[in-house]
């Protein structure tokens, strides 16, 4: 049996592999794949929370979606939030990490100062920032007044409310990204910097031409994490603005919540959820093709 034994070995290895994957797969199937499939199925029906009857609608929900002004607004808000907040938070985090990537006195204090917002529950953080953002007595406006800027009712103003939440997100997550980037920076061999310094390369150019390429896999990783954390905006919207004023902060996750849980309109909420899935999936695909190839990340 010249071929028998290795085949058996391979079979045993595959069997073991499936066995090891089984626990994960069971839970993934139940709480990721099945919900996704189900949400697609729901989107073709009239499903109401608390009512067991399910009525076939065909594409009616999608038609509604197409005509739904608020959906487009929420989608726009989601896109705006995501494509601005993630890069800004990453740049902030990168600058912090670069600044802290040297033997500074008080390192521990700086690190803690930048990281602690990550650990504050988003409910609490949201409430605190509602206060900080208040017009007049709010500390932020008081600070701005010191440098001669006018008072703004950040969360009452439909053009400022979403940016205000975005600023808070940056505060909340930069420290997290910073920690990851800091770790990556420490792995960049120092002789590269020394060589560049001997060549008379400026600090800025060193950052652009040495640091960034070398930590690009980590940057990519952080961008993915950032994308995942951008879902957290639900908590802030829920706590701080409830989607207002004038729908300025209504984002897809919140709109799904409203439709599904407030309006009990599961069918339509599922339709929205599918759009969100497509959006996130698409964004990840874009990131993977734009950056992924360059940083050799997901492939192998």
């Amino acid at each position, binding site marked *: 049996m010249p071929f028998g034994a290795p085949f058996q070995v391979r079979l045993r290895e595959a069997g073991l592999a499936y066995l090891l994957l089984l626990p994960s797969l069971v839970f993934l199937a139940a709480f990721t794949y099945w919900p996704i499939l189900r949400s697609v199925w729901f989107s073709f029906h009239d499903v109401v929370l608390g009512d067991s009857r399910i009525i076939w609608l065909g594409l009616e929900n999608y038609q509604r979606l197409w005509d739904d002004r608020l959906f487009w607004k929420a989608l726009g808000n989601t896109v705006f939030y995501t494509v601005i907040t993630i890069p800004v938070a990453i740049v902030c985090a990168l600058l912090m990490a670069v600044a802290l990537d040297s033997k500074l006195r008080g390192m521990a204090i700086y690190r803690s100062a930048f990281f602690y917002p990550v650990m504050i529950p988003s409910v609490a953080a949201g409430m605190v920032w509602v206060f900080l953002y208040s017009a007049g007595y709010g500390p932020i406006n008081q600070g701005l007044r010191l440098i001669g800027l006018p008072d703004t009712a950040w969360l009452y103003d439909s053009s400022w409310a979403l940016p205000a939440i975005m600023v808070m997100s940056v505060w909340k997550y930069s420290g997290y990204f910073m920690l990851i980037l800091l770790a990556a920076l420490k792995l960049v061999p120092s002789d590269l910097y020394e060589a560049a310094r001997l060549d008379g390369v400026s600090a800025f150019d060193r950052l652009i031409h040495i640091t960034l390429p070398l930590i690009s896999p980590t940057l990519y990783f952080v961008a993915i994490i950032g994308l995942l954390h951008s879902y957290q905006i639900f908590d802030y919207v829920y706590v701080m603005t409830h989607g207002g004023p*004038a729908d300025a902060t209504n984002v897809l996750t919140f709109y799904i919540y409203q439709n599904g849980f407030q309006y009990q309109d599961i069918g339509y909420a599922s339709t929205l959820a599918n759009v969100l899935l497509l959006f996130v999936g698409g964004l990840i695909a874009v990131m993977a093709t734009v950056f992924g190839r360059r940083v050799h990340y997901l492939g192998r």
Partner: protein
Amino acid sequence: MSNKSTQDRGGLPATRRALVAGAAATVASAALLRGARAQARTKLQFMYPVGVSGDINKLVAGMIAKFNAAHPTIEVEAVYAGNYDNTEQKVITALGVGEPPATWLPINSALQAFLGLDALADVTAKAKADDVYQDFIPGFLETCVSDGKLYGLPFQPSTPVLYLNRTAMKAAGIAKAPETWTELLDVAKALTIREKGELKRWGLTIGGGWHDWIFECYCRQNELVPWTKDKVLFDNPAALDALEFWVKMEQAGVMPKASTWEGSANDFMAGRTAMLYHSTGSLTNLRKSSSFEVDVAFMPKNKAFGACQGGGPIMIAKKQSDAAIEASWTFARWMTSTEVQSQWGRDTGYLAVRKSSWETPEMKAYLKEVPQAKVALDQSAYAGAFLQVPGYHKVREYLKSALDRTLAGEIKPDAALKEANAASNREIQRLLRRRG
């Protein structure tokens, strides 16, 4: 949870009456046989939201403990369920799996939603056999009535009221609260402070997030109830007139374009706005957290005084045994008894639902100390139920969006209301179609 144990003891597949008898017998025998007491207790779940402040959780827990101590045959478990929306969602979910809580406390607007799900026990007969129709304040009772039938007992009604910063008014030389829209605008103008073009204090803020509720009050002040059982009437000229008045106040620079519910309360406490439309339920917090004297007034009238009910009734699930319904009724009755209501009103700022509650010595003493607490009661004579239409949640969002966008200058008032009206009625129709 339904009272499965009782049902089992009642045992046999029988007609309802037999079941009642069986259950009653069980209850009675349990009362006699102390040993069996624990098993014979009817277990009830009561889902409630927190409408006012953190203490409610504690207050409710205390009340429930008192009730349970006084009723050996009934055991109530109180479930804090988030806000009104969360509560409603939880109840509806539980209804979906056929295990509703015995009682719950939704916002009164949800009446039609629950009736649509055939979820509510009709308590008309029980109420008639009791003093409910005599002692409850009619305006409050009305929020639980549909087609002449009573579906619950009002528990914590509220209306919006006009909060005033008395200190600021004195400083501006204003002696009395505005009574009409015109006066409101004038007072607001007088109370608004700008320095070098920069705003220091608004004259008036309409609490955001629930401003659709306050808007309905404005409609009612124009003698319009902007809804019927199966449609809304936002495109009515009386509603348009109300919205145009809001726009006028905004353009006069006395009122912010938008606010949030919690934020506007903060603004008032911080002296950022001199007048505030907010729930009467906020009275205790506003009074205790402000560093100035807080006064409360009727919402100014236009053609008439008008207000609408916030807050909620205790509703009782239909799909449970008669014994459980009976126990639930006992609970609802106790929660709305003279003493409990008097205490609850004083603790929270909600309005006691019974006339007799307002006559208790404790309440009288409290009113002497806090005369503002009486205003909402007096105003409730002009109050009706709030937006009791199917799909009221979505309708509220349509209306809020229309109001917001109008004040933000994105759309004209008539176009906004027309759009909200059409969208709302489409949604109501959709739900009615589903009900068949």
